[in-house]
């Protein structure tokens, strides 16, 4: 294995957004529009840096930065390999897309004097997500989890309805309990090993696998992360939070928030702990497979029953998170590839859907599924993007949804669990039911009286372009799937390469 390369790039990915978050309210005093501009520039710079970093990782294998030049395990280490390299590019890309979309959307949904603070919180949430992914120190990870959560609570509470406040409060209570479980898990690991560095923990833990303290630590991590991940049945905070948050915030959280938590779950289960621990010491993969299967089916069924568009999308996310967990818990390379590709693909699909939902609210104020009747004639481009993403959610060939389902199905067969195919197929059918209903209404139903009076026309360019770009990627990466799949395969090799 190559020596990891020392470079300050990983630090910049966290430092630039963090410093800018603090500066945003000050810059907004010079000119109002600077707040939104800062967010766009910072996320764009982060995206470019993340791409450079991923390129470097593809060359050398692992890139690290030692804070204060303290060598690990004494100092905090930022460490990027193929797995978090991919997630960094994804999170920063969604950051760019949403911050471009946010300018007009936020202007219509949030009081003007709050805008600078909105963008400050937006950048803090971005900092937290990037930090969680980039860090190689497990306590530092907890700090970033809390940074992203606290800014997330604030952003959700900025929603227009008063329900946004209770949604945010409930998320705060559950999120804090989840994060405290993680903190307690870290304490248990530290107590046994005396280290907080993930790579060092991975070395020191194997002789201790039978220890009850380590088992407790693992259980605490799994439950705490499942709350953050909104894995069924710990998803109760999510539908309300996504429904009532401002459109831009729902898009960002739905596309990146749970994906980052999924990354942490994979990191803890397969890097900090060896895959053999998950398979042989405690039956955690079995338990999570069952929960993931239930999540896939229950999430899709609950989505059918919803009348609010964003709530329907949120329940569908519950199911999609099930896919990610399902693929990972098969503990083979194909399944893990499917899970990692689905992390990227679901971010693109759900990002598109939530952006389109935000555009609909901006233009017509419609929030219900029924209100979409006849929308295809009013906002043809946005609805085309929505339809592409909806087809992708169902898993139609030539879309990204098909690619990830294909790998998940192959992974299930590799693991000899053919009955999981039934779950995957059944849920595709359920997805088809609730998305077909919507697509049917969009194009073939008569618009309601209120909608009839809205003149046909699209949202401003700054909202339309992000939606088109993510929808375009849903097709592009579905047709030309080689790049994401080959990267995901390398990352999957890192995670489950040594499993048996």
């Amino acid at each position, binding site marked *: 294995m190559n020596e990891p390369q020392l470079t300050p790039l990983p630090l910049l990915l966290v430092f630039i957004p963090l410093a800018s978050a603090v500066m945003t309210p000050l810059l907004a005093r010079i000119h109002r529009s600077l707040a939104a501009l800062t967010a766009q520039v910072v996320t764009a710079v982060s995206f470019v840096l993340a791409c450079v970093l991923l390129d470097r990782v593809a060359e050398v294998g692992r890139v690290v930065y030692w804070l204060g030049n303290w060598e690990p395990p004494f100092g905090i280490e930022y460490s990027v390999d193929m797995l978090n390299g991919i997630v960094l590019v994804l999170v920063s890309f969604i950051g760019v897309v949403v911050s471009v979309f946010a300018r007009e959307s936020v202007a219509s949904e949030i009081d003007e004097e709050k805008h600078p603070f909105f963008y400050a919180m937006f950048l803090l949430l971005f900092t937290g997500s990037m930090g969680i992914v980039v860090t190689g120190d497990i306590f530092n990870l907890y*700090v970033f989890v*809390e940074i992203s959560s*606290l800014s997330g609570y604030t952003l959700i509470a900025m929603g227009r309805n008063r329900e946004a406040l209770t949604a945010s409060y409930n998320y*705060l209570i559950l999120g804090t309990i989840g994060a*405290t479980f993680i903190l307690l898990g870290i304490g248990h690991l530290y107590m046994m090993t005396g280290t907080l560095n993930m790579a060092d923990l991975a070395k020191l833990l194997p002789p201790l696998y039978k220890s009850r303290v380590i088992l407790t630590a693992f259980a605490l991590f799994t439950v705490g992360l499942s709350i953050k991940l909104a894995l069924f049945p710990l998803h109760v905070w999510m539908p309300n939070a996504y429904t009532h948050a401002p459109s831009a915030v729902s898009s960002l959280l739905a596309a990146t928030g749970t994906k980052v938590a999924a990354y942490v779950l994979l990191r803890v289960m397969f890097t900090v702990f060896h895959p053999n621990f998950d398979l042989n010491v405690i039956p955690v993969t079995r338990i999570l497979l069952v929960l993931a299967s239930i999540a896939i089916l229950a999430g899709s069924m609950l989505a059918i029953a919803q009348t609010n568009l964003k709530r329907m999308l949120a329940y569908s996310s519950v199911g999609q998170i099930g896919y990610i967990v399902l693929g990972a818990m098969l503990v083979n390379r194909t399944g893990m590839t499917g899970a990692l590709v689905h992390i990227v693909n679901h971010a693109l699909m759900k990002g598109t859907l939530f952006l389109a939902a935000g555009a609909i609210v901006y233009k017509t104020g419609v929030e219900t599924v029924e209100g979409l009747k006849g929308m295809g004639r009013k906002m043809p481009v946005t609805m085309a993007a929505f339809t592409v993403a909806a087809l992708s959610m169902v898993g139609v060939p030539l879309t990204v949804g098909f690619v990830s389902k294909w790998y998940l199905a192959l992974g299930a067969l590799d693991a000899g669990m053919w009955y999981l195919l039934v779950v995957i197929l059944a849920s595709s059918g359920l997805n088809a039911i609730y998305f077909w209903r919507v697509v049917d209404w969009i194009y073939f139903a008569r618009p309601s009286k209120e909608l009839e009076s809205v003149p046909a026309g699209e949202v401003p360019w700054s909202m339309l372009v992000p939606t088109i770009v993510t929808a375009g990627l849903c097709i592009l990466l579905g047709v030309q799937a080689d790049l994401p799949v080959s990267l995901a395969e390398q990352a999957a090799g890192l995670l489950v390469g040594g499993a048996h």
Partner: protein
Amino acid sequence: MDELILGKYNYWVYVALMMIGFYAVIAKPNLIKKIIGVNIFQTAVFLFYISIGKVEGGTAPIVWDQAVHYDNPIPHVLILTAIVVSVSTTAVAFALIIKIKERFGTIEEDQIRDLRRTPTGEET
């Protein structure tokens, strides 16, 4: 047996406190009381961290000629961070509760649930 109960009493206290806090979060309908529960829950974890840093007969981990055998300072440092997080969480929660009181007129969870169920529009 004595070793398990008396020798590790601080761990028992931490578990008991944690469960008390957890109970309050689940059972109390008042939003402020829930936050108090969360605080007790978090404080229990702080106690756990301080306990694991203690070395038998150790002194404070400071530069001092008698500090040959000293406690592990790292859990203390870690928990300072966690305390800051806990304070921030409480502050955000209180801000939310004030807003909830303004817009719902109550901070009792069951009453808020009733208000949300009735579709009457809210007075601006």
